[in-house]
């Protein structure tokens, strides 16, 4: 009978194991084990990728390279894995003062609890940032505090067991290190750093994901995530120039690895080789040509992104080092960086102390406007949006925003550029000068409070597509609002990972909305000297009034 079935359904969903993780409710969270099933975890690194990293970073990427699945009971951990984790935690508590403070100072006020997009998309309490950090804090209390050593569980401690390790893997890979929670924390606890430490510790015992380690290996070996060799990198930019010529009538011949150039330009390889990043790259090419900028691309520093950030601080440092090394080799004055998210977290917060000081470079000064970017006085590297906004402010660009009239645009603040470096107004200033139809999403979903795309920190892999869709729900929900209210059809951003992940996110939640970089819209609007009449945008889509 229908009602009996309904009773059973209602009963089962409340009293049976959690559908999110298999955890059984009505028990203390510490006693609720996680359950791995297809779709809720990333695949482990392939054996050869794991081996490659072990050779190049001994002691950082630990464990035994092996074939296994996280669905297996036995993860084939090293025999002394527990000792490795606890020693690793001890080392990090001593080395990173922030970690020690974050372990001690939380008062469980709950301000962060409903601020995480993973919690808002799953309803799973272990995705509340406070509880996610508690997964590690409980072990810290148990082994590193007097109260915990004596009182154990009574003092909120618990021993490091295989179940705890599995829980760490489940939830430290359901955090994109977006730091939205930290905006609301009265103590400024940066849960992203807790996740970073969680992932570092997991790497010590060989618990990892292929989606992160393979691009990191490619980056280490060939200089970029996609594993593009120099000739391929150069060729593909050549193909973009061919299409630019067809669209605008202007032939651009960019230089590569040119010694003595004033500026080195570095952007994520996805801008050179992935849809829709390529249109953003076409925007860069047009902008630099418009200015007659003395700059060069590099096939060695051919990756702005840095998957080391999602792995381990030592790998991050190693992958980042090539940027200054290349700047030094080429003898440039300063570095200009393209549209990327996590690249800018690394540059803004870590590069200076990891691989600096870059005292062989000069404080970035725009050769066009003379503006000196003292905000980058130590890193010597500025963001393309800062550079472009300054050009517009000084009236140096010839723009026709009506060439973007076939688009109604909103802007997604990337977590890293907004919360990580405070880049809030520059992209908006650029947008308002290159498009006529621009609308903001609701206030509590943009700027410092922006919602993550849901797939950052190396979570943009296909095997967890449903997880990505629910993690991206808060962002997609805000886009849906401006789509319905203002007919927004274009979601712009300044992040290469966003361009990839938001494309998938929109395809599910708001199929009528496309994704683009801000520089693509700049490229559409730029009036180039000697250009032919433009009939299409950079995607060969007819401009407004040119549809016939």
């Amino acid at each position: 009978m229908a009602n009996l079935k309904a009773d059973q359904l209602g009963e089962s969903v409340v009293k049976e194991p959690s559908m999110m993780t298999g955890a059984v409710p009505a028990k203390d969270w510490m006693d609720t084990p996680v359950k791995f099933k297809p779709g809720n975890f990333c695949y482990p690194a392939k054996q050869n990728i794991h081996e490659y990293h072990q050779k190049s970073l001994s002691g950082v990427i630990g464990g035994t390279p092996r074939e296994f699945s996280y669905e297996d009971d036995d993860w084939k951990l090293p025999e002394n894995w527990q000792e490795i984790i606890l020693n690793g935690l001890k080392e990090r508590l001593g080395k990173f003062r922030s970690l020690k403070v974050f372990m001690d100072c939380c008062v469980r006020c709950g301000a962060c609890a409903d601020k995480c997009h993973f919690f808002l998309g799953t309803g799973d309490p272990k995705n509340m940032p406070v509880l996610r950090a508690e997964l590690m804090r409980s072990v810290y209390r148990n082994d590193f505090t007097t109260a915990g050593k004596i009182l154990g569980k009574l003092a909120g401690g618990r021993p490091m067991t295989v179940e705890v390790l599995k829980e760490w893997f489940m939830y430290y890979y359901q955090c994109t290190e977006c730091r939205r929670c930290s905006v609301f924390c009265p103590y400024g606890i940066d849960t992203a750093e807790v996740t970073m430490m969680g992932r570092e510790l997991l790497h010590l015992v060989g618990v990892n994901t292929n989606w992160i380690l393979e691009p990191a290996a490619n980056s280490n070996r060939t200089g970029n995530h996609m594993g593009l060799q120099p000739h391929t990198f150069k060729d593909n930019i050549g193909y973009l120039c061919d299409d630019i010529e067809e669209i605008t009538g202007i032939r651009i011949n960019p230089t590569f690895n040119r010694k003595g150039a004033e500026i080195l330009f570095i952007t994520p390889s996805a801008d050179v080789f992935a849809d829709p990043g390529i249109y953003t790259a076409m925007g860069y090419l047009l902008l630099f040509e418009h200015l007659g900028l003395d700059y060069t691309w590099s096939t060695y520093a051919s990756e702005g992104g840095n998957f080391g950030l999602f792995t381990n601080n030592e790998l991050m440092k190693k992958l980042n080092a090539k940027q200054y090394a290349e700047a030094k080799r080429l003898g440039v004055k300063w570095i200009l960086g393209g549209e990327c998210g996590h690249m800018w977290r690394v540059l803004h917060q870590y590069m200076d102390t990891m691989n600096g000081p870059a005292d062989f470079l000069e404080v970035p000064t725009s050769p066009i406007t003379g503006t000196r970017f003292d905000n980058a006085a130590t890193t010597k590297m500025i963001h393309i949006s800062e550079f472009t906004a300054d050009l517009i402010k000084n009236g140096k660009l010839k723009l026709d925003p009506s060439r973007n009239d076939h688009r109604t645009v909103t802007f997604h603040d990337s977590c890293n550029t907004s919360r990580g470096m405070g880049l809030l107004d520059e992209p908006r200033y650029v947008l308002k000068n290159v498009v006529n139809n621009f609308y903001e999403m609701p206030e509590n979903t943009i700027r410092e409070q922006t919602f993550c795309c849901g797939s950052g920190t190396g979570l943009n892999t296909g095997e967890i597509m449903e997880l990505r869709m629910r993690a991206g729900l808060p962002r997609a929900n805000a886009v849906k609002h401006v789509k319905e209210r203002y007919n927004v059809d274009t979601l712009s951003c300044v992040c290469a990972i966003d361009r990839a992940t938001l494309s998938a996110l929109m395809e599910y939640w708001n199929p009528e909305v496309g994704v683009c970089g801000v520089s693509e819209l700049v490229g559409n609007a730029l009036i180039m000297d000697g250009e032919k009449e433009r009939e299409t945008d950079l995607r060969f889509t007819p401009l407004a009034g040119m549809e016939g």
Partner: protein
Amino acid sequence: MQISDFLQENGEIQDRWIDRALATYPEGGVAALKAQKDRFANPIGYNIRHALTSLYKHFCGTVELEQALVALEDLIRIRAVQEFSPADAVSFLFLLKNAVKEENSTKKTAAEALGLAEWLAFEQRIDEIALRTFDMYMDSRERVFKVRVNELRRGTDNVVCPSALMRREDNKQTTVEPINIHSSHEAR
């Protein structure tokens, strides 16, 4: 009594129904999903309240079915990517029957209660909407699979420039190859 009058006179049924639908989420998180009313700060809570309220109003006779179905589809789109089984994803609809039946059983007089014919007609209307939710659920699932396949395809292009992408779109019909999305181990 007519079902529309019964539901209007016993408005607490709607709140009970919403509470039970929220209770399909893991125990420790429900309070937060219930407390935050801002639609952008709490999309799950908002969409549950919005969809269930729209349906309730439909049964009260104040909202058109098509309008209620739009809200329902938004909710199903969410639940289709959360880790519910297909049955659990749409189970909340049937919880309204329970809530109405419980309320009806407390009525002392025939004038206050629903007649058998009214009850059977109401049940049938819910069942008809439930059938529509299966379509919505499957549409969402198929969309996830397409998103996954399309992303995989975007990552396997050898030459990526606008003209090449246009050529790919033109040749789409002939270039689609069978992909077992359940067993493929994607990597860059």
